[in-house]
């Protein structure tokens, strides 16, 4: 694999980049030229992953509402799809599964077959530790702690072309997530406005400092510092051209004023700036609902409302780019079938996830979830894992990003795919 810097040093298309394109940063010009030569008619695809940290109760998000066992196990948490006077019922998806009413924003997408759901998804490793399960899911190796890279970082390495822009892989988090650990270039940043030389209250000083830095980095003898410095300033100038702070989403999309809403809004901005974004990552927190998770109102309802409204704001905002976007959620495990003594649920096994995109095999609750009879539960208490998360991640990476090297992406996995994407 040719590294980014290797490519730049080798000078391949450097001639095209310099001078000709005026205000366009050099690396973008190079990237554009490179694209034209390697794959002239191929548009860039973007995979947006959202990690729901804390383990989402998949049985409440997408409830098998005809299941009497579940009803008995959750005396105060079970929700029905039947219409009553004082409560909002579940949204009946297919006669068996009901979507939580606070996710009503998802319903049209499901009906239009652009939203797919996988139920019973999880890890073959039965740990119920958040840390371990997230670690395994993000490294993509459920039985190996020592894997140094994350699966999304490996995906970047498998894109089939050099990563010529600093924005190929962006995580909207303050620290690098485990999924992004590794040797392929990736950036973690919680706020795009930080991508600048900053001196509060002193723009002139900041300008001067920026110019000084740019000149110093341009002349340093260290190739690493010189090259990264160049990219940094180009990226900075490019972002400065856009008014990030006073961004107006398209199509009257309204992002929730939440951490996730903010992250997705910034991802949308990057997509529209056409800076070469291919793998994006964001986080959603607060899913560890041991206490009073609520039903149609409460913590869980607020969480799923935020999740679905944020995703749908992104989707609406990116109306013109939808063919190139896939959004996928993931969570480390699910929660107990039985509610606990404090109105919540404890750590379980399988959960569900959502995949949104125009080439999704949507309108279906995928997976092979069995009725919740005692003999079907894992350890006598949890929704069993019937679909390995790697099956779904691998299929999405393949069909959306053209990555079909499971030996590198998920080295220990040799399973079957379940058809979440249309061929």
């Amino acid at each position, binding site marked *: 694999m040719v590294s980014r810097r290797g490519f730049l040093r080798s000078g391949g298309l450097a001639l095209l980049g310099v001078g000709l394109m005026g205000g366009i940063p050099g690396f973008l010009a190079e990237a554009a030229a490179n694209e034209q030569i390697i794959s002239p008619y191929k548009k860039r695809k973007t995979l947006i992953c959202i990690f729901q940290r804390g383990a989402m109760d998949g049985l409440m998000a997408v409830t098998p509402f005809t299941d009497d066992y579940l009803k008995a196990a959750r005396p105060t948490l079970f929700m029905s799809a039947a219409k009553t006077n004082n409560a909002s019922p579940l949204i009946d998806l297919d006669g068996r599964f009901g979507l939580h009413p606070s996710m009503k924003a998802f319903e049209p997408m499901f009906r239009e077959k652009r939203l797919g759901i996988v139920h019973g998804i999880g890890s073959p490793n039965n740990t119920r530790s958040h840390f371990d399960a997230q670690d395994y899911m993000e490294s993509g190796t459920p039985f190996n702690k020592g894997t140094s890279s994350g699966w999304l970082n490996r995906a970047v390495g498998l894109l089939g072309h050099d990563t010529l822009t600093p924005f190929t892989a962006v995580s909207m988090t303050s620290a690098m997530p485990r999924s992004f650990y590794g040797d392929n270039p990736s950036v973690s940043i919680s706020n795009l406005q*930080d991508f600048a030389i900053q001196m509060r209250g002193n723009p002139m*000083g900041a300008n001067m400092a920026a110019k000084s830095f740019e000149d110093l980095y341009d002349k340093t003898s260290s190739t690493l510092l010189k090259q*990264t410095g160049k990219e940094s300033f180009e990226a900075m100038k490019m972002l400065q051209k856009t008014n990030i702070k006073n961004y107006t989403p398209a199509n009257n999309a309204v992002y929730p004023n939440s951490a996730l809403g903010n992250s997705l809004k910034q991802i949308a901005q990057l997509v529209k700036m056409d800076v070469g974004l291919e793998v994006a990552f964001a986080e959603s927190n607060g899913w560890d609902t041991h*206490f*009073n998770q609520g039903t149609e109102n409460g913590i869980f309802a607020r969480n799923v409302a935020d999740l679905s409204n944020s995703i749908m704001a992104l989707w609406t905002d990116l109306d013109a780019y939808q063919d190139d976007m896939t959004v996928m959620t993931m969570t480390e495990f699910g929660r107990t079938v039985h509610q606990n003594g*404090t109105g919540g649920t404890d750590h379980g096994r399988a959960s569900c996830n959502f995949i949104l995109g125009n080439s999704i095999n949507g309108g279906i609750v995928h997976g092979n979830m069995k009725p919740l009879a*005692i003999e079907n539960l894992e350890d006598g*208490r949890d929704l069993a894992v019937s679909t390995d998360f790697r099956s779904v991640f691998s299929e999405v990476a393949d069909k959306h990003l053209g990555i079909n090297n499971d030996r590198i992406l998920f080295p220990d996995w040799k399973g079957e795919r379940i058809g979440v994407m249309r061929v």
Partner: protein
Amino acid sequence: MPSAFVKNNKKYFFSAVLLVAGAVALSSFFEDNQNIRQAKFPYKQQGLTEKQAAAHLLSRFTYGATPGEIDAVVKTGLENWFNQQLDAKLPDDSLNLLLANFDALKLSNTQIVNQYPKNAQVLRMAISAGVVNKDSVKTDRKAYRDLLLGYMQQNGMKPEQELYRQFISQKILRAAYTNNQLQEVMTSFWFNHFNVSITKNDCAQFIPDYERDVIRPNALGKFSDILLATAKSPAMLYYLDNFTSSAANDDNGANKNALRRRLMQNMAAQNADTGRAAILMNKVQKAKKAQGLNENYAREVMELHTLGVDGGYTQQDVTQAAKVLTGWTIYPMGQYGKAVKSIADKIGNDGLQSRGFVRDSDFLFNPNRHDKTEKVVLGKHFGPDGGYEEGVQLLSMLAHNQATAKFITRKIAVRFVNDNPPQSLLDKMVKTFIIKDGDIKQVLYTMVSSPEFWSASAVREKTKSPFELAIGSVRSLNANVTQPYQLFNWINKMGEKIYYYQAPTGFPDKGQYWINTGALLNRMNFGLALTTGRIPGVKVDLAALNNHHEPESAQAALPVYSKLIMPERKLDETTKRLTPLLTDPNLVQKVDEASSDKLYARVNEPASMSMTSADKAIADSKLDSKQNKKNNVTAMQTTSGSNSMLGQVVGVIIGSPEYQRR
């Protein structure tokens, strides 16, 4: 086996072979090596002056030279200075005074578990004490938080987060101000090598003790000692799950199966009597928790701590090693290990010992969980029924394997020489590692007395990590840090959230990992923020740095301060590049007009609300000193003059490419 090695001394070769075979240390046979630590450093042959050599030495074995430190090292003598650092016995009175304000730092694990309980634990206790109604939990955030805080105060408990704030603040102060710099650098090195992470909730509380009692005292000792100490520490036992690992076919397993059968029968017969089913399921879960082999630690101790991934072990070795280490767990404390606690309460520690338990501080070997069959790891037999000693022998065998010598010495050379250390150097270090029984002091001395350490391919070739950049700047500028946690936020922003690296590999130690677009801009911003007074609780007196000789202009300031901050380096290029930008006749005025009001307001800003109590105590104690007060006043006065311009110039120097190297 490198050929030079064999040619040099056959005796060494044979000792290596014997050690590989698991023989005990033979270092006492080699008294001629006592003089390893007397060798002269060969820097002159590599074209370095004594001052340049001192600068290089300081760039590798400290967090950065303080003003005047290069001259001091030359005066002490380079070899003497290095030996002092290896012995790590210099007094640290002023640092200890600063650290005295952090009350959590001296607590034992048991005290921490009781005084800084985990948030979830507090909640459970508050519910069972009837302070918080379980039905109101999380429905009203503010009210419920207040209730919890009140409950904690009444019971002498403090928020868990406060513990980590104190611990991290401690690390920053120590790195910035300790006289035993090498010990602290090696503490960071070994912590990263034997990484544990605050992100893993189960082990987080034990991390302050881990660094204090497990890593730091062994940082310049023998490798086998630090390996054993980490293996027995609660932090590592939790981080890599060995605390839970037990023989797969013990009584618990049988219990679990019986419980499960009963559960099935019940469910079938009573058609989901949920209350009763829940009770049974809890029992199943508890039985399950206490049962089964966990290979995580056994795998990583070979792959990451000793042999290295290509160290010649198999999956079979991993499984067998995991069996050897079954029963290695922690002594009960707080909510941990309740089952053993009830036994211990009944029969006492003596009773435990007579039943084959081994207790060493927070560590416990529990023979009931130990796999008593015979095991074979890397060809060596363990047991049957060898108890605690099996694990000790296993770790000793791993520590003395030649693959380990290669793996560890290479990692040390990468840390201190360059990202791709030459084989000739590695051979020498491996040899010392083997004949000196993994004595880290001797290995380090061997490295520094090798010409490779002083070569052009080593000098200034390492890239500072964000932590090294931040602490190095504090040292370069003699900064006064009263709110260390503010620096942690910057270090995190630049890409190194210390103590939070999730994977057991630790942070990668190479320039390419640290230098990426987002991180690089943050490094520059850090430099500017630090020198223009925008990091609360971190004060820099630039005038004092130059003995209160104020440079006449920004142009004049540039070479003066470049030299002060980066002594013994060729800086022509840096100053040449920056000078044209500073020659605008109205520049100073412009910048000052644009900045001085706001900057002044910021410098005078009262202590941030987010200060920890310990931070406040430090800040207060410093303000008490009259001399400091006077200095503060002087600094303010220069601020309204050209100091903002000066700050900006120095900020650019800190953010410059040259300063990112060491």
